[in-house]
């Protein structure tokens, strides 16, 4: 017995929504970074489920576009996390805080 792709789509949509909500609601930069990772992985899950759905529909050959996309996303997510954490360190050196509430020098 296997899980139908539609269930995985729903799970991914839920993960994306949790990530997006966390992005707007949480004030700690590190937690916000984690929320972004959650959203990226929701996209990965959708890619893999869609690839399986298309493979099941056509049957002849596995559809590899989705998995390959997901591999590139994993690499780029690592790059983004590296740069993001570097910026967080730069912020901490300047202000001794990682809370977004204290990052508001630039405004009208």
């Amino acid at each position, binding site marked *: 017995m296997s899980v139908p792709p539609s269930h995985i789509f729903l799970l991914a949509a839920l993960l994306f929504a949790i990530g997006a909500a966390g*992005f707007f609601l949480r004030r700690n930069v590190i937690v916000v970074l984690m929320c*972004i990772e959650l*959203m990226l992985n929701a996209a990965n899950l959708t890619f893999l489920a*869609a690839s399986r759905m298309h493979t099941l529909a056509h049957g002849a050959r596995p559809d590899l576009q989705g998995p390959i996309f997901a591999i590139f996303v994993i690499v780029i997510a690592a790059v983004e996390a590296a*740069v993001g954490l*570097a910026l967080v360190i730069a912020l901490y050196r300047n202000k001794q805080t990682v809370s977004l509430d204290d990052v508001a020098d630039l405004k009208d």
Partner: protein
Amino acid sequence: MSPQLLQQLFTADALWALAPLIALCLGAMLVLLSDILPGTAGLRRPLFLLTIAAAAYGAVHGFGAPEGTYMMGSFHHSHALSAWTVIFLLSGLIAFEFGQRYYKEEARFLAEHDVLMLTSLAGMVMMAGAADLLAFFIGLETLSVPLYTLAGFRRARSDSVEAGLKYFMLGAFAAAMFLYGAALVYAATGTISIEDMSGMGSTLTEPLALAGFALIVGSLFFKISVFPFHLWVPDVYQGAPTPVTAFMATGTKAAGFAFLLTLMGQNLASGKPVLPESAAWIVGWIAVITMAAGNLGALVQTDLKRMLAYSGVAHAGTMLLAIAAGWHDTEPHGAQTALLFYMAAYVFTAGGAFGLLAWMESEGGEVTIESLKGLSARRPMLAAAMAVFMLSLGGIPPLGGFWGKYLVFSCAVRADMIPLAVIGVLMSVIALGYYLKVIVAMYMQPQTQSHSAGISPRLAAAVATGVCALVVVALGMLPSWVLERLG
């Protein structure tokens, strides 16, 4: 990988199509090497200029090369791509020249600055030439990640770090939005190739595909700073080092619009838009609201950098009008031509204005309307150049900015979007309010603040300012010369 496959992939045509990209990547590595190897620090500037020249040679060669799709359908070479590449390179070159002596305590990291800029340029070329969603995503990130770092480049200053962090957070959110959208589109259509999608007809208007395209376009709206994703622009543009702001305001915007044109089918062989026709008026109204948001925001600013940031939002709105007209335009490549010309003028105008700002800032701190008073008496040439840039941004004939606006509004008129064109023209009149404020301050009001000895002459910045101002005037005098070459 079999040798036959390699031979199919790396044909001479494919290599020429990718030449600007290859040149930029190689150049970035060489500049990085010059930073590491002992005794080669002096090579930084020549290597950067050489890289830009090599990439420009590749782009110019591309004007004569056949159009086509390479690298297993992921990269599409067109003559428009060559034109976009030239625009990106000019944007990078202008930002580079104005950045030469802008940095003080960070000056020893300049090689890294240049490497990041070249990498970002490679990302722009990739974005503009992408023919599938994966190639576009890699281009987008290759463009964005170096820019996050560049925005926070003055890492000892909290406003620069804040700008970098804000740009990063919203950029990463937009990237996640794009990815989820791409995944939904892939689920609905079974392909990531934009060319394949354009022939799918009714599959593209299924709810899943529509949701996917909405997310993709939303993330592009973030990159080109369009309402409601424009709120980060003033903060990030103000906090980032000014040469980087010049680069972000011109190059990034151009790359985003180039890919929007791909989604509208104007960069592809099929020529059919992938985005559904029903979006035309929605995009049109978003364009008009963006103009209003940008102009109203700019009217109340006294800090020139922040004012130019809001003005950039208004310009993005104007350019988006050409995209909105793309579905019903009677000329098949009307939007492409209009945006190429608009962007060509905008690179020199906004690049020059931000560059001039960088030059003045590195002498006397923040530039406000107050500190500009009496500039024409202190530095007549500088004030004249600034006046040219402001008038061109405001769309006064006979300067380059006027023809850009004219072409965009005529797209809207051809597509029967006359109310939007009328509002757009009215918005340009409102915009004159703040552009003229700068000119009035420079020419008609006496100096109120004391200034140090004045702005020291700098060859690179002076030449760049002069060239930008001359090109803006030339584009206004001879628009047909450029338009003939564009298409």
